[in-house]
């Protein structure tokens, strides 16, 4: 699960997304094992509001944690080299790579401009297939 899904839960400026996210956490995730990466934990640690930061930290504690490693870094660099994502999206690439090498079935994100889009989905799975890594479904919360 990408950081955007967790932060959307507390972002009341985009009500529709917040409601979908609440539904996702209340109903959908009960059917799955949920994983977050060390990148998500580190990003949430940059939340400016101390109350929200504590809420985020407490919230992610209940999920399984995946850590980046050399294999994920190498795959992420491959995504960048093959222009799946730009250099400024290396952290997103790393997030996708961590999910891929850990055989995660679904990567859930609200990031429609870089992650949840047809080009990224196709290219990620093309690179994964070339590198002998399991393919990955990249989706938004309502799709699960």
């Amino acid at each position, binding site marked *: 699960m990408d*950081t*955007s899904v967790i*932060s*959307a839960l507390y*972002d009341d*400026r*985009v009500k529709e997304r917040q409601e979908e996210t609440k539904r996702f956490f209340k109903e959908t995730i009960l059917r799955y094992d949920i994983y977050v990466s060390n*990148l998500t934990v*580190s*990003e949430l640690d*940059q*939340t*400016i*509001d101390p109350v*929200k930061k504590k809420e985020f930290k407490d919230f992610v504690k209940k999920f399984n944690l995946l850590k980046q490693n050399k294999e994920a*870094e190498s795959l992420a*660099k491959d995504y960048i080299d093959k222009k799946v994502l730009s*250099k*400024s*999206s*290396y*952290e*997103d690439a*790393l997030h996708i790579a961590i999910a891929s090498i850990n055989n995660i079935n679904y990567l859930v994100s*609200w*990031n429609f*401009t*870089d992650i949840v889009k047809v080009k990224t989905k196709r290219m990620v799975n093309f690179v994964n297939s070339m590198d002998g890594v399991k393919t990955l479904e990249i989706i938004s919360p309502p799709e699960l």
Partner: protein
Amino acid sequence: MKNKIEYFDYLNEAQKNDLKDSVVKSLERQMRKKYPKDKMMFELKMLKAINSFRLLSLN
């Protein structure tokens, strides 16, 4: 869109990594185009972009 940080403190991360103001401004322009009305995603993507610079420079 105002520059006041509301969600993710990307400016603090930029400062910690000695990122030049001009680089931060350029990234802000790019991300504002991507997320003109979504402050949370704008700040999250700024944070991710700044972290990406740091991570790529370490490798």
